């Protein structure tokens, strides 16, 4: 049972005591949105975002805490530091058009339209190099060509090259007129690529797809389409489920060893890096790291506050992550799950509420970006997370003999293949049973926003009355703003 007061002596019934980091997340997200999307000067964006975060605190505070001054001071200090970092991040100068001749390591390589692209990390920057193909992650390449800033989109739902690539930490695109592989790096990109090739060569199709997605973050197109149609794309993205499984297994295996927290943390971060360090996996690793440190030091940490802190920290490090769909969906879904867990209802009710709530809140973003969102996802996800939290570690274990080169290993891998096949059949039947999908629409937007505000308010310790006030007032303003 959670104590009535937190470590600083502030009642848990107030947002300051329950989830102070959520205010930072509001602060940072809104600052980036106002400065980058609305076009406000940064100082105005900073003032408005701090005001909104303060407003959130005020609405939720039932009884003014007496010992909150140090926490408020700490929050203001974090806010100031975060704002400085964000300002530095978004005011970084763009490289002007010109020519570039540089050497770097290929981090990732993929098809892009009718050409191929390689993301190349040079000494201090990352470039998206458009070229004819032939390089692999881990290759050291020399390239030259015309350097172009990313193109920005004027329309709302159109693909914005600038936002997409900036969120991934790249600086500019290069149309390569020369691209040659000059060597091979032995770094993590090379290891990932080698492992991905081994997985594809030695495992049956479905097992290879799921294991490659879970271990090295490489998604098979066919599998990706299948899960998109079923509304279960998150199963292929390395996120809290995957990182949590790795951390939990490590903690269990090392429970009698000294430095178990350190070992579990190291393994977890190695896994996050090996799987491509996607925003969702880094967010999960940061959150779990907070929990591990809390457990090691005997302190409890709330999941909602942990997710908020991890997400805010990531935004301060790279403000343009705000545009990354993986980051947004990951943060929104875990905040929703954590807030459902904080509701004062029984475990069955929480289980029943979790999947529809996550679907409703994340579908606004998914529908806005990707178009239709399948309704079947709301039902399939009741089972997806529990099933895959067993299936993925079991399949990983069954895949090891094959990957180690043992011929008999394929029999073990076939068990995993059968299990994945059974899941595909189940998922397929469910999508046939519930074939409808929904596109972005104002009712979807308003119901998603309302659910998010109410659940997040409750998770922050708002009373029902305060949560209802926050919900009603915000929705009214939201409606007026969008008129």
């Amino acid at each position, binding site marked *: 049972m959670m104590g009535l007061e937190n470590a600083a002596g502030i009642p848990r019934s107030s947002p300051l005591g329950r989830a102070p980091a959520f205010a930072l997340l509001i602060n940072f997200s809104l600052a980036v949105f106002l400065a980058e999307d609305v*076009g*406000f000067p940064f100082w105005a964006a900073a003032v408005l975002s701090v005001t909104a975060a303060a407003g959130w605190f005020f609405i939720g505070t039932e009884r003014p805490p007496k010992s909150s001054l140090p926490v408020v001071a700490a929050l203001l200090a974090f806010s100031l530091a975060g704002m400085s970092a964000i300002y530095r991040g978004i005011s970084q100068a763009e*490289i002007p058009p010109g020519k570039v001749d540089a050497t770097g390591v290929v981090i990732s390589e993929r098809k892009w339209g009718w*050409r191929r692209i390689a993301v190349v990390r040079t000494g201090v920057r990352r470039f998206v190099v458009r070229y004819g193909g032939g390089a692999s992650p881990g290759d050291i390449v020399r390239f030259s060509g015309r350097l172009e800033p990313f*193109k920005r989109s004027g329309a709302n739902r159109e693909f914005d090259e600038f936002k997409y690539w900036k969120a991934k930490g790249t600086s500019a695109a290069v149309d390569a007129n020369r691209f040659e592989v000059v060597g091979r790096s032995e770094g993590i990109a090379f290891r990932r690529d080698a492992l991905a090739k081994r997985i594809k060569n030695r495992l049956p199709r479905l097992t290879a797809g799921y294991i490659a997605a879970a271990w090295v973050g490489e998604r098979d197109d066919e599998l990706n389409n299948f899960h998109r149609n079923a509304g279960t794309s998150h199963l292929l993205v390395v996120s809290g489920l995957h990182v949590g499984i790795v951390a939990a297994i490590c903690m269990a295996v090392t429970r009698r060893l000294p430095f178990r927290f350190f070992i579990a943390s190291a393994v977890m971060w190695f896994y996050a890096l090996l799987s491509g360090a996607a925003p969702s996996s880094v967010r999960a690793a940061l959150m779990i790291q907070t929990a591990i440190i809390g457990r090691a030091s005997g302190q409890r940490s709330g999941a909602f506050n942990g997710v908020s802190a991890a997400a805010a920290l990531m935004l301060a490090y790279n403000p343009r992550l705000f545009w990354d769909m993986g980051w947004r969906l990951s943060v929104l879904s875990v905040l929703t799950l954590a807030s459902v867990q904080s509701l004062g209802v029984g475990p069955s009710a929480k289980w029943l509420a979790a999947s529809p709530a996550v679907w409703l809140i994340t579908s606004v973003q998914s529908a806005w970006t990707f178009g239709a969102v399948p309704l079947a996802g709301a039902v399939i996800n009741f089972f997806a997370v529990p099933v895959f939290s067993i299936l993925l570690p079991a399949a990983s274990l069954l895949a090891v003999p094959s990957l180690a080169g043992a011929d008999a290993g394929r029999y073990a891998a076939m068990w995993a293949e059968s299990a994945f096949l059974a899941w595909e059949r189940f998922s397929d039947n469910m999508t046939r049973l519930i074939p409808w999908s929904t596109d972005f629409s104002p009712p979807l937007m308003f119901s998603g926003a309302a659910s998010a505000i109410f659940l997040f308010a409750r998770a922050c310790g708002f009373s029902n009355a305060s949560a209802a*006030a926050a919900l009603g007032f915000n929705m009214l303003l939201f409606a007026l703003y969008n008129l």
Partner: protein
Amino acid sequence: MMYISDNVKKWLFMIAGLICIASVFCVTALFRGAFASREEIIPVSAVSQTDESALAAPEPEIWAVYVTGEVLRPGVYEIEPGGRVDDAIRLAGGFTRLADRDAVNLAAKLRDEAHIAVPPIISRDDGAKTVAQTPRAAPQTRKPAAAVKSSAPAVSYPGGANSEEGAQKIDINTADASLLATLPGIGPKLSQAIVAYRDENGPFGDIEDLRNVGGIGVKRFEAVKALVKTGNR
């Protein structure tokens, strides 16, 4: 000193919170779009990164145009600003013998990122020669050209440019979006829609099935039906 009860404090806090939130919405709504977009491009000399030593001064402006269809070397070409369609066709090696020369206005002015699709003269089953409908006579703005190159073909028809007449048709079950986009009336969005439909529903059984794709009505279908095929049909 005036005593304020906890109940009153609670209401004061809530009102303060609502005022804060309302002021943020109001300021955002009032000043939305009031600030000019900031261009943050700065001179090379101000980029204080060692890696940028490789950067030279900006090039003079050059246009990139995409030439596809019945030309000898389809692809993306650099061209001086102010050029005409004729210049781009010359860069692409000129027309093939199957090109419908009347369908292209060689005198039309080009612009950056233009796409020039040269349609073929189609051979109908009855043996009569006919001209592809709805040709793109003038350059059209398409998605930004992804690359600038000098010779490599960007698109190719199954069977090669000089193979038998039937092979000149585009197989809608195998063609990628960029090839489908060369069909008259089919832009990048529709070509993506065709590929998406194919991915979702499997291969087209007949070219008539194209009409099931959202955005392809009777007119568009009539314009392309002589240019497409499914498998060997």
